């Protein structure tokens, strides 16, 4: 399996390098969202005596600059892509191989992220120069952050795979996908740091997987979390990966039984 993952990641890197300009433009486009949040929140913070809910402009800058990397790490195969995958015959091709298709997706996207991370670094440097983030990290913060961004990637892979399997039962899964995306937007820390949300939202977020895909990895680096919180967060990620993995395993066999191998 390690051989497959290394080979697939290498293949993904090679593919990504075929479209260097497109990849860079895509990353530059990705910066727009966090910069908008950053400008809005730092403006609000400055007009409210220099902070909002205890978060200073420098801390907002740190949050959203790290957010950009975490956002890229969170990109996985979209549930909307399942219909295309079935129609183009890609799923049939994968089902003919002695390998669960999820490994293909995990390795493929993981390989692409190696390029994205490398291209992100100069972007992060530019944003740091402009927005002057407040960042005071320990070696443990960095290590946990590095592990947590991959944990976030795996949680989101499992969750969106589960969502995508809805396609085997209905061609009208778009509404379900949208509901999930909205919940994720509000409860993950993607829209705003969770400290700024009402208490009941923060409580709800603690019981759901979304927080562990965005907020936790970011806070691991910028949030001055205690060792207990850092390790507890990693434990929660492992739990959500396991839960997602179990559901994927449970539903996959039933999904494949319904597969009618239409398309090419």
């Amino acid at each position: 399996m390690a051989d497959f993952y290394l080979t697939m990641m290498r293949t993904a890197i090679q593919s990504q390098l075929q479209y260097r300009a497109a990849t860079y433009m895509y990353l530059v486009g990705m910066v727009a969202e966090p910069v908008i949040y950053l400008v809005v929140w730092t403006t609000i913070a400055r007009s409210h005596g220099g902070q909002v809910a205890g978060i200073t402009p420098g801390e907002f800058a740190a949050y959203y600059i790290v957010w950009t990397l975490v956002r890229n790490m969170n990109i996985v195969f979209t549930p909307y892509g399942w219909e295309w995958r079935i129609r183009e015959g890609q799923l049939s091709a994968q089902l003919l191989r002695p390998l669960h298709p999820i490994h293909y997706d995990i390795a493929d996207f993981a390989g692409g992220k190696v390029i994205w991370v490398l291209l992100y670094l100069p972007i992060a440097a530019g944003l740091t120069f402009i927005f002057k983030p407040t960042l005071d990290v320990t070696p443990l913060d960095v290590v946990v952050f590095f592990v947590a961004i991959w944990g976030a990637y795996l949680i989101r892979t499992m969750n969106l795979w589960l969502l995508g399997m809805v396609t085997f039962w209905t061609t009208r899964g778009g509404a379900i996908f949208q509901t999930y995306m909205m919940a994720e937007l509000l409860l993950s820390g993607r829209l705003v740091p969770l400290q700024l949300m009402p208490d009941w939202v923060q409580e709800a977020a603690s019981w759901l997987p979304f927080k562990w895909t965005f907020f936790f990895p970011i806070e691991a680096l910028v949030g001055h979390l205690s060792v207990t919180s850092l390790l507890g967060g990693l434990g929660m990620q492992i739990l959500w990966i396991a839960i997602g993995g179990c559901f994927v395993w449970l539903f996959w066999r039933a999904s494949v039984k319904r597969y009618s191998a239409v398309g090419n």
Partner: protein
Amino acid sequence: MEPESPADVRVTELSKTFSVPEREAGLRAAVRSLFHRKMRAVRAVDAISFEIGRGEVVGFLGPNGAGKTTTLKMLSGLLYPTSGQARVLGFLPSRREKDFLRGITLVMGNRNQLQWDLPALDSFELNRAIYRVRRNDFVAMRDELIELLEIDDLVRKPVRNLSLGERMKVEIVGSLLHRPRVLFLDEPTIGLDVTMQKRIRSFIAEYNRRHAATVLLTSHYMADVVALCRRVIVIHHGRVLFDGDLAALSDRFAAYKTIDVALADGTRPLDSYGEVLQRDGDRVKLRVPKAEAAPIAARLLGELQVADLTIEEPPIEDVIELVFAQKAAE
């Protein structure tokens, strides 16, 4: 996994029924379908049975919509049968066990399964990792297949830059790197030019000879079937109409031969010899019962001034057409 049967492929009363939505055209029908969806059961494969032994190359023939591809998809594990059973290399395909998937390949003509932006060699390397082929075995097999198909100059180009025929050849190589024992080939020469079709046919024959691979081949090009298959299975409306030698197919469904005769006087009436199919100047084509071909030929030679005479079996395309037409009439 049960003990391996002598047959590589064993199909017993295999059926597949699809539930397909159906509605009339128009806006009213579209709105009505929001509340009440009408479904129709389509029996794509209807209780078929056959066995294929190790190393056999069998043609699987039928018109469009006959159930050929559905059958191949069930045999390769892509589709669950509705009823009946299929066993390939002793495995139940629907279980999709890893050892089963390593033992088979399904090649569909005009389908792209390789990495679009990368040279084929990179995709071959990925297939090696997926199928866990040992490095030495992989290199030997890859080089053998590249040599057989003469694609050494193509494997370093991105797949997107290859022509259709070139892409088909590299796709075939990618599908065989793990040395499958059973090959399901679904119209592998579709859309290819005559030269490329011949090349693919020779390759399949050579691969079968070298590796004793079992091949189940569908094709609408009878030249593929005639070149490769001694045995054919004919399917129509999901049912097996015929399973046997290609020659026996002709005997059973087309009990006639054609006599192509060049006469000194091509205008003479020839109805007493057989059915006149075609007249072209002094050349006349007659259809005669198979058993009477020799005596009628002798009569033509004895009674008329004949410049040239040939007796031919009916083209396999005509035989297949007759098979389908007979069953449609029934």
